[in-house]
């Protein structure tokens, strides 16, 4: 039984249909990439999977039970979200923000226990934000904030981690850092589903890729199969060459930047 299963999902905002007949399944120990052009429905699909939106048609089940039968708190123990953007009007210290990831595990009125401190400590160390622990979140740069939010999701310590273009505002070093950290979670049996814009990043880290186009699932499978040059041309409208990159030992894409 897959951990999460979506069956024939459709969704529309009024007359505009955003998703059509999407089916997918997530298995433990796998890194999934969700790719597609802007407006192809990636964020809407993620919103359906985290129960932020309700599908117009279709069903989602988590560990064999309908997603709607879970309370918010129960869901938060199964899946964590790293959002794309993050802005906060109140100057909480970084440590408090990361500790918020432990909210679904701590009883009301109870203080964080040793395991909660251990989880937040590990998450902050993994993403190297531990030296920012006492700084105010409002005083951090965009990249630092994004790593703090990722640390919060890691501290939540859930089987499934969902990333919504989580590294869009990060430099290359920190992008690689976050992906290496979550890849390690996958090796330990976790599941990651990440909406990613960078095709090469996705090809290097993902076991399986879901490619969306105009709300439909265009292809699903290993990177080297899904990210073939003709399909990239069809979905994204750009010319490219693909090859096996020996340095990364992965499938990679080289784009044609300028018309010859």
């Amino acid at each position, binding site marked *: 039984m897959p951990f999460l299963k979506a069956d024939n999902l459709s969704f529309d905002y009024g007359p505009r249909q955003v998703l059509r007949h999407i089916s997918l399944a997530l298995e433990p120990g796998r890194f999934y990439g969700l790719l597609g052009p802007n407006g192809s429905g990636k964020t809407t699909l993620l919103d359906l999977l985290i129960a932020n939106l309700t599908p117009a048609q279709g069903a989602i089940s988590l560990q064999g039970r309908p997603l709607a039968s879970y309370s918010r708190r129960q869901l938060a123990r199964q899946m964590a*979200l790293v959002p794309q953007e993050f802005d906060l009007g*109140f100057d909480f210290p970084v440590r*408090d923000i990361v500790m918020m990831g432990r909210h679904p595990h701590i009883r009301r009125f109870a203080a964080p226990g040793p395991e909660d401190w251990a989880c937040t400590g590990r998450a902050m160390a993994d993403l190297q934000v531990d030296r920012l622990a006492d700084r105010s979140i409002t005083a951090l740069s965009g990249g630092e904030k994004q790593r703090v939010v990722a640390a919060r999701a890691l501290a939540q310590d859930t089987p499934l981690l969902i990333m919504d273009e989580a590294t869009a505002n990060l430099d290359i070093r920190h992008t690689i850092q976050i992906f290496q950290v979550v890849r390690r979670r996958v090796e330990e049996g976790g599941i990651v589903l990440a909406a990613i814009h960078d095709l090469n990043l996705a090809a290097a880290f993902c076991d399986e890729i879901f490619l969306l186009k105009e709300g439909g699932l265009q292809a699903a499978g290993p990177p080297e199969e899904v990210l073939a040059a003709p399909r990239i041309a069809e979905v994204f409208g750009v010319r490219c060459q693909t090859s096996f990159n020996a340095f990364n030992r992965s499938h990679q894409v080289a784009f044609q930047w300028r018309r010859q």
Partner: protein
Amino acid sequence: MTDCSRHNRPPYLMITALGLALVLAIVVSAGMGYLAITPLEVAQVIWAKVSGSPLPVDFDPTFGYVVWEVRLPRILTAALVGGSLAVAGVLFQAILLNPLADPYTLGVSSGAAFGASLALLINISFLSLYSVPLFAFAGAVATLFVVLALASVDGRLGTGTLILSGVIVAAILSAGIGFIKHLADEQVAVIIFWLMGSFAARTWSHVMLVCGAALAGLVIAFFFGRDLNIMALGQRSSDSLGVDTARTRKILLVAGSLVTATCVSVSGIIGFIGLITPHLMRFIVGPDNRKLIPVSFLAGAILLLAADTLTRAVLPSEVPIGVLTALIGGPFFCYIFRKKQLHALS
């Protein structure tokens, strides 16, 4: 890791200090006024009433009457209203994700003012003393539900739409109040005076009423303290962290508004306490609502009690309390707001 656990402890020291300051303020202010009474005598009266033992035989009985029947009800009402408005301020700022929100942001004050003006205009007397407070309360609650209905789209409440709905409804009600004033002729002075707020001639039944509202507000706010912190992250994130954001937001909006409506019905409209107190306390204890709620309650109580004592016993003639808090609070708020802006730039 030991510093981590200390870091999140409740601010016991701050709560104790503020609690003592509040008790001191109550005792001292009860001695202030036309008839000067020493704090020791005030304490004697309070002790005698609370413990049920008789006062010493040489004790002036007028002192007992003035302290217990005249001044203390007013003082306690002022303190409880101040504390309640401050807690409501914490709630509204946390729910609306806006440090500049206050208990009146959703038009609750305009609704109360409209209700009270209406009662004064048609000179309702069948409910005797309580007709104006009841109308004010009804106006505030009705306004709240109109604003909530206007702002909710299939069960969701966006913070932006909430504030906008509040502004729209308040604007309509202001026009309504203007029209009532226009119709009122000689009653207009009574309406204006009520709108400016007052604690004069409050009784123990007022104290009990506000006390109930304050307790309910504190308990509910404290119950959802941690959820409030997480809701600061925005709905998508707080939902993913296990908070039922839409439901919690609705519960707390209603609770905060009912507390505010009770305060308004007892004292009229008193601005700036609910805005400034949480703001000030955030400088001291930080943004954690679990700390902010008790500390703001005590600080709000002290602030409004001090302001009311100023207008009652220090100033040569009584200035309406709502005017006084706005006159002191407004410029003060401009100062901290400006300072924060400059600080953010540097």
